């Protein structure tokens, strides 16, 4: 995982509510056995015409989209399936953070494990970001993960929540697996007292 400390970047918006993972990366692109190339298929069905040509007005096909590092989405972003291909594709395109008023649980979990920052803001801030993107698309905002703030161009700093564990992992670029591995002894003693019956595969 790459370290994430601070980021000053421009944003683009896909303001639709309830953006599901089937829109982020349609199921027919899940036949891969690696993570390569998923960014090219990000939002495929919203992004390309039937003949495969890019829709010029879709934000990911614009110069603004290509240089943005922050995606602003509508409420309940990332709902639907558990496919980690969704955050892989978002990161593959070049985004480092997604801002919304809320995220679906599995998408948020997946993103935090990869270092793609899911930032929850209140509705007013969300509206302010939307109009900023529309009126001054070249304006940068600054994310400070250590301070857990999003700084707007007017200087206002908006706090966002993140659990301390994920925050530490992302600040240091450390995979969460290491923490689980560090508890191997505790897992062994847990297994020793956990009823054997629940190993249902072994029975029958």
């Amino acid at each position: 995982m790459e370290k994430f400390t601070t980021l000053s970047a421009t944003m683009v918006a896909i303001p639709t509510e309830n953006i599901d993972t089937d829109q982020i990366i349609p199921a027919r692109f899940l036949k891969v056995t690696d993570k390569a190339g998923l960014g090219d298929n990000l939002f495929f069905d919203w992004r390309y015409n039937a003949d495969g040509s890019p829709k010029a007005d879709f934000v990911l096909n614009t110069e603004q989209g290509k240089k943005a590092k922050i995606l602003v989405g509508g409420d309940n972003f990332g709902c639907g399936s558990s496919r980690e291909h969704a955050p892989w594709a978002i990161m593959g395109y070049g985004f480092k953070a997604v801002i919304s008023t809320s995220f679906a649980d599995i998408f948020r979990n997946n993103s935090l494990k990869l270092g793609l920052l899911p930032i929850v803001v209140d509705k007013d801030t969300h509206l302010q970001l939307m109009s900023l993107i529309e009126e001054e698309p070249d304006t940068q905002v600054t994310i400070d993960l250590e301070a857990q703030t999003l700084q707007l161009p007017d200087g206002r700093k908006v706090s966002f929540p993140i659990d301390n564990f994920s925050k530490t992992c992302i600040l240091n670029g450390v995979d969460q697996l290491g923490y689980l591995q560090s508890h191997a002894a505790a897992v062994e003693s847990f297994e020793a007292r956990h009823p054997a019956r629940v190993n249902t595969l072994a029975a029958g």
Partner: protein
Amino acid sequence: MSSNGHPKTLFEKIWNQHVVVNEPGNPAVIYIDLHLIHEVTSPQAFTGLREKGLKVRRPDKTIATMDHGIPTTPPDIPIEDVMVIRQISQLEKNCAEFGIPLYGLNSPNRGIVHVIGPENGLTQPGMTIVCGDSHTSTHGAFGTLAFGIGTSEVEHVLATQTLLQVKPKTFAVRVDGTLAPGVSAKDIILNLISRIGIGGGTGHVFEYMGSAIRGLSMEERMTICNMSIEGGARAGMVAPDDTTFEYIAGRKHAPKGADWDAAVAEWRQLPTDDGAVFDKEIVINANELEPMITYGTNPGMGMKISDAIPDPATVKDVSERQTLDKALKYMDLQPGQPLLGHKVDVVFLGSCTNSRISDLRLAAGLLKGRKVAGNVRMMVVPGSQQVKQQAEAEGLDQIFKAAGAEWREAGCSMCIAMNGDQLAPGQYAVSTSNRNFEGRQGKGGRTFLASPLTAAATAITGQITDVRTLLG
């Protein structure tokens, strides 16, 4: 009652029994009793293991199958999609290398991952079960804490048999009363989601309770728990009872003899204690429920089948209005119009929501002696090879075929449309699956989610039909 402390919910009991480490400020380390894997969300996890030089810690608690991408055409027809072939052979290789049992392409036990766990008796009360698939919530019907995970988490479980989890909140869904004829478990869950919205359960685990839930079979409870994720909850649960125990008894991996008695005694301790407190609660009156159907592009956009399509102009919240407007444009539906009588092109009976033997029996019961309308392609896709065999033993396949429906091999099929079973752009389908997202069943396809009974009734008339008009 719990032996110590405050009254606990079913969820809290299972959670507490599986916490390995819980350091202040960090998520809990939770032990996983059973890990189900399939061909689509596991390859990158195995690559991660190889890169780190790790083994699968408990291959004996891991089981693999293939369901998402495999064709539902007859087995003697070779698979054409090279990417599907690659995923299948990758899973075979990974299972062989890491010692994981696999219900492969030619196994009589192969099927949709959430169908085969229960039918083989692998899913039992009080366990923790995960899978790289959001409909893992299905297994919660047994009083099991079961939820979907991403591929990074699949790797974590393969390597350590544990997961890092922030403790979710609890949400009681009480359904009291009796379902009217023609109304089924699918209508209960579609009703719940239409009320709370698809983000209504975010951060929570549902516990379904009440007399209507008690009266449901295990397969009906699975249908409800399956779609917990469509209400935003990662997991949904039903407390185990005699119905649960009767279902499990005698299955391949069920406890036997004295072990069975000991297991049942423990399972009887699991139900939520009197006085236990939930973070949220909703009450549904089963007596008032009618067959449900969705009209939009997320599962929360559902209504009674006799209702009119809602009008965006009456929605106050701007973004909600835009969402509904966009959905109706995609569906090419007019506000204020009924859905009853709307022509459909395809009826899909299948998916981890509704592809079990009882679903097939219900649909076959209605189709017996009737024909699928000429304008409709009806696909019947059993959830597993065992379901398929059972249905054939009962002659259900003959009923479907005589009616003009397609009787296919087991798999996820048109629920996720990865295997070639898909809608053409613009086509309308009534589907017993779980998601009506844009393009979910094929690019440009339009999905109405409904119960197996509504699906069968619609297949017969060729247009969206209230099944109650066909019940004798």
